[in-house]
């Protein structure tokens, strides 16, 4: 019985020594390095499959990519496993060192780096299992959108100002945003490039911006400039009204006379107009702004000359959540302090003649 106990203890000691083994660390790190080297080239030459890695967290991207092409993505979980085992090996080394800290305290710097690395591996796993990446979300100033996968949370864009160079090159995107939780504002920030709103693992940052056609400015000989957008009504005479029904930035008419949208860029804008009098609708039709005004409108005394588009600027915001970000930051701090400690202890050990003769 006692012999069996001793054998078990010996076996456990051997397993522990193997777990802490330096050679195991080198083998795992080398295997992961070689595998990721090859995998990174596969990744680079297959952007259709791997582009989604940036837009999604690993736990969402990997199952889908695996179901499509397991042959090309097998290296991702395999290298993840090797890094995880390397992390476990690092943890064993750290625990082993903690038991011997009285005699090996000079290695504090090195083991702070180990601690940081373990925290980073855990933070990456945590963030890529329970976080999310979403967007870019198109938001107009004043709009509020629900934050995906976080019930009760909403993001409101209070104000948006793009900063441009005289050449038109974007310099910055200044978003005044507020974060709401259960109809109560919980955070407000000025979000711009390199200045995100970070709150409870959420990271809200600007991705881009754009403009959407809202209406058109016209010139009328008797009234001057008139702005028209969908829903606008214009009184032509005491009993005749012109109403704008729809506005398409890029439209075409097919052989059956049906008008359809062909794009979102301002190329061939068209307005659906309706002319009504006291007895009901007099005319309804499409006015392609590059063409002359429809005859029915001219006959009714409507004289419109398009001057230019009226655009509304929107912001594109990315909303990510990484619940492991604080842990990752803690890990980074541990590593940074560890590096500084290790530099000092390296030279101290050199001065004392302490050589790595293991």
């Amino acid at each position, binding site marked *: 019985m006692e012999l069996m106990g001793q054998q078990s203890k010996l076996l456990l000691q051997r397993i522990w020594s193997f777990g802490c083994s*330096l*050679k195991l*660390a*080198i083998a795992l*790190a*080398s295997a*992961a*390095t070689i595998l*990721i*080297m090859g995998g*990174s080239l596969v*990744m*680079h030459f297959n952007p259709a499959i*791997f582009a989604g*890695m*940036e837009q999604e967290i690993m736990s969402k991207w990997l199952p889908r990519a695996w179901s499509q092409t397991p042959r090309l993505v097998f290296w991702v979980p395999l290298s993840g496993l090797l890094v995880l085992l390397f992390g476990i090996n690092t943890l064993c080394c750290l625990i082993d060192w903690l038991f011997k800290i009285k005699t090996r305290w000079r290695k504090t710097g090195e083991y702070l*780096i180990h601690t940081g690395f373990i925290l980073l591996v855990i933070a*990456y796993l945590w*963030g890529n299992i329970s976080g999310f*990446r979403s967007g870019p979300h198109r938001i107009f100033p004043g709009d509020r959108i629900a934050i995906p996968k976080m019930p009760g949370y909403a993001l409101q864009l209070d104000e948006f100002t793009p900063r441009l160079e005289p050449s038109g090159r*974007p*310099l*910055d995107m200044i978003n005044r945003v507020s974060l709401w939780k259960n109809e109560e504002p919980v955070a407000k920030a000025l979000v711009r*490039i*390199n*200045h*995100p709103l*970070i709150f409870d693992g959420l*990271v809200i*940052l600007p991705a881009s911006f754009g403009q959407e056609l809202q209406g058109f400015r016209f010139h009328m000989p008797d009234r001057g400039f008139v702005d028209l957008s969908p829903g606008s009504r214009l009184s032509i005479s005491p009993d005749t009204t012109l109403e704008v029904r729809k506005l398409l930035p890029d439209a075409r008419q097919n052989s059956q006379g049906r008008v359809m949208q062909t794009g979102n860029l301002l190329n061939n804008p068209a307005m659906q107009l309706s002319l009504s009098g006291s007895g009901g609708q007099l005319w309804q039709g499409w006015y392609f702004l590059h063409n002359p005004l429809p005859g029915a409108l001219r006959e009714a005394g409507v004289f419109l000359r398009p001057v230019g588009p009226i655009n509304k600027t929107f912001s594109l915001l*990315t909303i*990510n959540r*990484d619940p492991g*970000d604080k842990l*990752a*930051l803690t890990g*980074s701090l541990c*590593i*940074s302090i560890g*590096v500084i400690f*290790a*530099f000092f202890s*390296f030279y101290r050990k*050199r001065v004392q003649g302490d050589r*790595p*003769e*293991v």
Partner: protein
Amino acid sequence: MSKTLLYVLFTIYATATVGYMVHLIWRRPILPKASLILITAGVLLQTWLLGHRWWMAGYLPVTNLFATLFFFSWALALIYLYFELRYRIRATGLFVMLLNLVLLGGALPRNTSVSALIPALDTPLFSLHIIFSFIGYAFFAMAFSIGALYLCQSRLNSELLPDLPTLRRINEEAIFLGFGLFTLCMIAGSIWAHIAWGHWFSWNIKSVWSVLVWMFYAGMCHAKFVRRWQGGVYAWLSIAGFGVVLFTYLGIGLLLESNHPLE
């Protein structure tokens, strides 16, 4: 930046390198001393040129191939100077300065103008990321040179070169310091990525290879404890490691598309 001053700098380093070469044949003690003086002058001139560009641009101008090669060359010369003054490695300078001439020579024909900084790079984290990265690379380049020299010395046993234990010691020191600084570069880069793109690790090829560089040198920091690998194997690993660094720095930027383009 004046091209003339760049050519003056190149000439200074080239003359210092020739000094080391001639010393190999004639063995005059004055030659390595003169080379060291020239390298010191070169480092001072290069520091001034770099500082001037930084002052004029209003940000650390390391955003294109010319600027990165110039910064890398400066960091390598500075680190050589550190090791030379600390260990008096003399003829070792030939190897390091040849590598430095390749870097500076690669920068000479390129456009020296400073382009406008793109908004995402306008953060101190970018400057820290770049500084730690290239000083780390320079230490790895130093380790590569020392590793190659270790292999030469183990065959030649020349009096002109430092003895094997000294070369091993310098190699380990270069790897350790390079790894530490490259680690800080990775941390600055990760924090910057988190605030700029919302995730601290990106699966683009440059970031992946940066992690590979880090893992490789982390492995080397451990490999020095394996008795059989001390010396020769470690020297070979230093050479292989620099291959990984070169691919990460130049190979990806020039041959492949990445979010760290080199123009």
